[in-house]
C-alpha cells in the first residue's frame, strides 16, 4: 500500500521540496487551494483565477509537456466541475496533475494556451462535451459533436442513450 497524504497540510509537510510544490509556493502560496498525494500521484488544486500563472510557474520548474486536459462532472455536488491538467516533465521524468474546481453557475476558466499551445484541442473537447468555457481560447468551437448539437454529452445529467 502506498502512502496517502490526504490534505494540503500533510503534503506541504512531507513534500515541501517537491519541485512542483516549491514552484507554486514560491510563485504565489495562496494560489494553492488544496493538495493530495495518492497512489504515487501528486494533485495540486489551484484557485481558478491563478491557473495560467501557476502553469507558467510549473513550466519554469521543468514541467514542459502538457499531456492532457480533461474534466470531471461531480453533479450534483458543488463545486460541480473539475478540470484536470496532466503535465509531464521530460527532464524530471515525472507527472503531476493540476486541477481547478468550477461552480455550475459560471463554468469558465482561463485558457492554458499561453503556456502550452497543445491545450487547444483538449479545451475544445472539454467545451464540447462538458460545456466548460475557456477564456482567451482562439477557436472555441465544438470538435466532436456537430456544430448545431444541443447539450453537452459527458455531463452526468445527460442520459447515456441521448435524448429521445
Amino acid at each position, binding site marked *: 500500500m502506498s502512502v496517502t497524504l490526504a490534505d494540503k497540510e500533510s503534503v506541504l509537510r512531507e513534500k515541501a521540496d517537491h519541485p512542483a510544490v516549491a514552484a507554486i509556493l514560491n510563485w504565489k502560496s495562496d494560489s494553492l487551494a488544496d493538495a493530495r498525494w495518492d497512489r504515487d500521484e501528486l494533485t495540486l488544486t489551484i484557485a481558478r483565477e491563478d491557473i495560467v500563472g501557476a502553469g507558467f510557474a510549473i513550466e519554469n520548474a521543468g514541467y514542459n509537456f502538457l499531456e*492532457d486536459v480533461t474534466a470531471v462532472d461531480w453533479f450534483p455536488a458543488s463545486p460541480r466541475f473539475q478540470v*484536470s491538467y496532466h503535465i509531464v516533465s521530460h527532464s524530471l521524468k515525472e*507527472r503531476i496533475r493540476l486541477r481547478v474546481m468550477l461552480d455550475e453557475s459560471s463554468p469558465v476558466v482561463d485558457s492554458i494556451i499561453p503556456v502550452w499551445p497543445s491545450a487547444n484541442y483538449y479545451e475544445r473537447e472539454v467545451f464540447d462535451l462538458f460545456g466548460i468555457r475557456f477564456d482567451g481560447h482562439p477557436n472555441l468551437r465544438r470538435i466532436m459533436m456537430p456544430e448545431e448539437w444541443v447539450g453537452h454529452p459527458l455531463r452526468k445529467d445527460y442520459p447515456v442513450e441521448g435524448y429521445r
Partner: protein
Amino acid sequence: MAQFTETPILEAPIAEGSADQTMVLNMGPQHPSTHGVLRLVLEIDGEIVVRLYPEIGYLHTGIEKTCEAKFYQQVVPLTDRIDYLSPMHNNLCYCLAVEKLLELPIPDKAQWVRVLLSELTRLNSHLVWLGTHAMDIGALTVFLYTFREREDILRIFELVAGQRMMTSYFRIGGLSMEPPLDFFERVQSFIKTFPEKIDEYSNLLTGNPIFVNRLQNVGHLSAADAIALGVTGPPLRASGVDFDLRRDMPYSSYEKFQFKVPTSQRCDVWGRYLVRLEEMRESVKIIQQALDGMPLGPVKANAPKIVLPDREKMKTQMESLIHHFKIVTEGFAVPAGEVYQGIESSRGQMGYYVVSDGTAKPYRVHMRNPSFASLQALETMCKGRMLADVVAVIGSIDVVLGEIDR
C-alpha cells in the same frame, strides 16, 4: 433533438479573410490517403498550402460516456475499438490504470507476456503504417510485403486471444487465460526471420530515389514546436527529443529490458521513417529478451473477488462459482480516487485517466490519445509546402481516426 447536417465548406472558418488568389479545397472525409475519415479543409495558393484546418468527429461514438455505464471489467472490450491498430496497448493502459486504483500486484509472468504482446502490437501497427505510408507515396509493393508479416502477427493474436484484432486479452488482474502451449514457439519462429524482413523493406525504400525525395526535408517540425503542440512518440523522437515512457517512466516491468530508444535530428518525414524502422528492430530485441527470460508462475493475480476464476474451478468449486456469479452480475467495487496511467503506444504517449467514486462502475474514464494531439501539428508541418506533401505528412504522423474521435 438536433440532427446532423453537413456544414457547408465555405462556412468553415478557414475561408474567412482569405485573399483573392487563394482557393479552398476540401480533402476527405472519404479520401484514400487520410487513413480513415479525416477531413482537411485546405486553403491553397496554386499548389502551396496557405492554411490547413482538420475537421474531426466523424467517428465519434461516445466511448467515454459508454464506459461510465459499464462495470470496470466490461470496459476492456471497448478499449480495443479506440486504436484499432494497437488494441493491446489500449487494453494494457486501461488495465494498468484500474490496477493502480486497486493497488493490485500483478504476477511476473503476466507482466512479461504483456510486454511481449505489446511489442508484437507495435510491430503490427508499424507494419500497417509502413505499408500504407509507402503506398501513399506511390510505392505499392511494400504494402503487400508488410501485410504478409502482419498476417503472421494476427495469427499469433488469434492463437493467444481467439481474436485477430479486437483481442481484449489483458484483463484487470492479469491475462484472460494462460497462453497456449505452442505460443512461445510461434513467436520465436516469427521473430527469428523478422529482422531479415525489415531489411527487405529497407532495401525497397531506403535507397529508392523517388521515395527519398518525397520524404526528405518535408514536414519540418522543430523540437520546440513538437513539445508545444503535444506531439509524442516517433514524430517527437524524430525531432531530436529523447523521451520514451517505456524507458523513462517504466510500467509493466519494462525496466527489466535492455533496448535503445532511436532518435533522429532530421525533424522531417524521412527522420520519422528512420525512427520507426529502427523501433521495429528494437521491438524484436525486447521480444527476444521476453522469450528468453519468461518467468514461471500464474498469469492472474490472487484476488478472487476481482479476477474471474478458471473455468474448471468455476464448474467444480462452490466458492469459485459464487465469485464468478458475483463478479459477472455485480462487478467489483474500486476504492475512490483518481489515477492517470501513461504508456508508450505505437503512436506516442497514450494515457488513461480513471476516476472512481467507490462503486463498481468507473465514474469517469478519459483517454489521452497520441494521434489527437499530433494532429494539431499538421498545419505547422504543411504550411508553405506543396499540396502533395500533405499526404506524406499525414502518413508520417500515423493517425488513427478511431482514437482521435473516440
